């Protein structure tokens, strides 16, 4: 017997009273030698900052292992305290920031490896369902070029925009929900 899933609904404008308690902006302590600031701004179809969005990120650790029972590659280490999950709201100017590490590569469908990437979900008032994108890394141009998911983004400009850019010692990744320069979102 197949059950129909419960439909998605928007988080609305008031999620901050319930959601920030689990997750948080720091996946690693800021003093971690591999710590990377991942930051950016979320804008809407009018180019206005979205000050009531929140982002969730999900990623493998620096060795490329997910802290999840279905990643059974025991030859790769797990890290104490690293869950690979972060969650943070945007501020008055639509900005967000995480402190994390660059994940290692993980297997691709059908063999080979995916380029290092972070899965990103965006939730907001006006989004009836989360939208999902991926962050790729600017120092991985060869792996990015061979990545089957990144390569599947049809629009060249949108594909290039999924690669974060180096700025102020961190990595900047802006999200445009709609309109000029609209971010490539995936059907998960």
């Amino acid at each position, binding site marked *: 017997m197949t059950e129909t899933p419960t439909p998605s609904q928007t988080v609305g404008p008031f999620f901050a009273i319930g*959601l920030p308690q689990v997750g948080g902006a720091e996946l690693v302590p800021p003093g971690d030698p591999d710590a990377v600031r991942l930051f950016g701004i979320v804008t809407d179809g009018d180019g206005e900052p979205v000050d009531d969005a929140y982002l969730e990120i999900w990623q493998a650790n620096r060795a490329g292992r997910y802290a999840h029972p279905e990643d059974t590659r025991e030859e790769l280490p797990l890290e104490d305290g690293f869950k690979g999950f972060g969650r943070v709201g945007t501020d008055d100017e639509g900005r967000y920031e995480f402190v994390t590490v660059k994940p290692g590569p993980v297997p691709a469908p059908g063999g080979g490896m995916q380029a290092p990437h972070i899965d990103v979900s965006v939730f907001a008032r006006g989004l009836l369902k989360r939208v999902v994108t991926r962050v790729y890394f600017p120092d991985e141009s060869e792996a990015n070029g061979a990545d089957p998911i990144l390569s599947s983004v049809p629009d060249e400009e949108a594909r290039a925009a999924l690669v974060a850019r180096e700025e102020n010692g961190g990595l900047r990744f802006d999200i445009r929900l709609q309109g000029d320069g609209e971010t490539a979102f995936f059907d998960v």
Partner: protein
Amino acid sequence: MAHQMTGGGVVIGYRRDDAKVDPPLLSPDYVATRTRAPKRPLVPLPHTLSEVTGPVYGHEAVGELDHDLTRQHEGEPIGERIILHGRVIDGDGRPVRNTLIEIWQANAAGRYRHLVDQHPAPLDPNFGGAGRCLTDDEGRYRFITIKPGAYPWRNHPNAWRAAHIHVSLFGPAFATRLVTQMYFPGDPLFFQDPIFLSVRGERDRDKMISSFDLSETVEEWALAYRFDIVLRGRESTPMVD
């Protein structure tokens, strides 16, 4: 085999929303979607190890009173105390065990404890409006809270949200993440609530409406509402390429 399935790059994905249960991102009657819904088609993403794994939270994420929104402050909140309970199952009817559920809601007067909410209804010093719990081995969960009030919003003239509780679940994988809203049976505001109506199928909308549950109602203490939640089921065959 399990090692080969993940390590070798062959994973079993989750089923797609072929029946279009979820609301379209652009639902113009809900005005905020007009400037926030992406306009380009979504890019199909075959599920990889990144999407069939997901955050794992257990008992460490949940405090002793997190499930009881009536006992998180010095006194008791004003309003109609209710028990909200149900089961979380997957698309094949199997329990989703030990998964984190988070809820948030307005108080009995229809106001959220949030700076942006300026509805001229009283805040309740004894009600924060947020809770969390884990499902048990049968996928069951249980909250104690108060029934939220309806509240006005500016979507269209004389617009009111049907009373609801926001419900957020992780499930076993990144792909199973769900945020929905739970409504109450017989709400007279459904017909004019474009968020509720954004779900196109009537039977699908019904899945967001809890049912009054006399069997779990506690005599001389609290009415119970049952809200069962279904997360996506899994494909039956591995995806290759």
